[in-house]
């Protein structure tokens, strides 16, 4: 009887383990992606007129700067962000023309399955994007956002909007007033970049001149 009941139980346990529906098997690549935006609720986005965007992207591997690149995906991402900023009423200018906003685009890779947060990413931000590039040598960066802790299993496209106009009054810091992140399957596929950047802007209706 004991043996019989044990076999009953084991059979039941095998059945139990095989009964769970795996949600990941029911997601398309598009559905797997998430879009996260944060903005500074004290920022007045209509008070800015001009922006400049970096002409390459920073590649960040496990919180280490791995260089700047500009492949086909990167070009499309920069172009898409530029186009959408212009559609929102901002004028693109060069870095020497005193832009009021700076835009950095980054590709982030993390091969571990640990915990990732905006805070971790921003700890090294000055190493990825030297403030000198924006004409503010000696300044630091400041990320006020505390949310965004997720386990990570793939890459992320990150777009950061920095306030150059008020850098001095922000304690000599280039403060992030908006960040957008796209993550999920095939996030770096050139066929998806337009949709990813558009999604980030669509959920940020406040981002306009």
């Amino acid at each position: 009887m004991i043996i019989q009941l044990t076999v009953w139980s084991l059979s039941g346990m095998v059945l139990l383990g095989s009964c769970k529906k795996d949600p990941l098997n029911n997601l398309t690549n598009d559905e797997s992606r998430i879009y996260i935006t944060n903005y500074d609720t004290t920022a007045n986005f209509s008070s800015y007129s001009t922006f400049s965007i970096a002409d390459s992207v920073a590649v960040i591997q496990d919180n280490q700067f791995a260089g700047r690149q500009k492949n086909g995906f990167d070009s499309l991402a920069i172009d898409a962000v530029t186009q959408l900023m212009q559609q929102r009423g901002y004028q693109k200018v060069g870095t020497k023309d005193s832009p009021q906003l700076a835009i950095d685009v980054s590709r982030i890779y993390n091969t571990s399955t640990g915990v990732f947060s905006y805070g971790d990413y921003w700890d090294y931000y000055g190493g990825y994007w030297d403030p000198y590039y924006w004409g503010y040598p000696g300044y630091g960066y400041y990320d006020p956002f505390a949310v965004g802790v997720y386990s990570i299993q793939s890459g992320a496209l990150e777009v950061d909007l920095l306030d150059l106009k008020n850098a001095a009054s922000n304690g000599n810091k280039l403060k992030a007033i908006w960040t957008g992140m796209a993550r999920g399957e095939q996030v770096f596929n050139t066929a998806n970049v337009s949709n990813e950047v558009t999604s980030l802007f669509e959920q940020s209706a406040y981002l306009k001149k």
Partner: protein
Amino acid sequence: MKALFQRYGVIAFLLLALGTAARAQYHNDLQFNINYNVNIPSGSFRDLIDKPAYKGFTAGLAYPITSQLRVGLSLGYNDYYQKYPRQVYSEGTGADVSAVVSNSVQQIPLLATVDYTLLKKGFIRPYVGAGAGVNFVSLDQYLGEFDNPRSSTHFAVRGEAGILIPLSSYSATAIRIGGSYNYAPYNKDGISSLDNWGIHAGISIPIR
């Protein structure tokens, strides 16, 4: 490998059920019950998932105290799942997340049970039952492909009613059909309970 284990698990399960049923000769033996369940979320559980769980079963042992009253143990399993279309979720501090959200909940209630059969004889024998014990809960909320898993243990109570249909006048093996209400307090993550209604159909087999 998983499919192989699943196949052998089902085969072993069916062979044991048939073998046990064939040896059944006594009406007052220990009973083994196994039911297929469909469970329907109710209350605040519906904020998470409002679709029925079609993957569920309950298995239990019931020891006869009298010819009508049995006490025993019951182990259940229910797998709930629902995917929601892409939507922007605002966190209220300037943070917005656009995601396809998938909620996956598994409940495994382990209950001490008592059943009372209202009629000793007859082609259809109504019964009522109750159970109380622990509910092992696994709750996974996916934002896109990113999981936020949580596991916890809670109190659970079940009330049920149904009918037993003996396979013959001389057999204690019976078809078991009924419904239940499963009270499953949760009180975490903004969800007060994982209560659900259940309907079940199965078999009750005597074990010597």
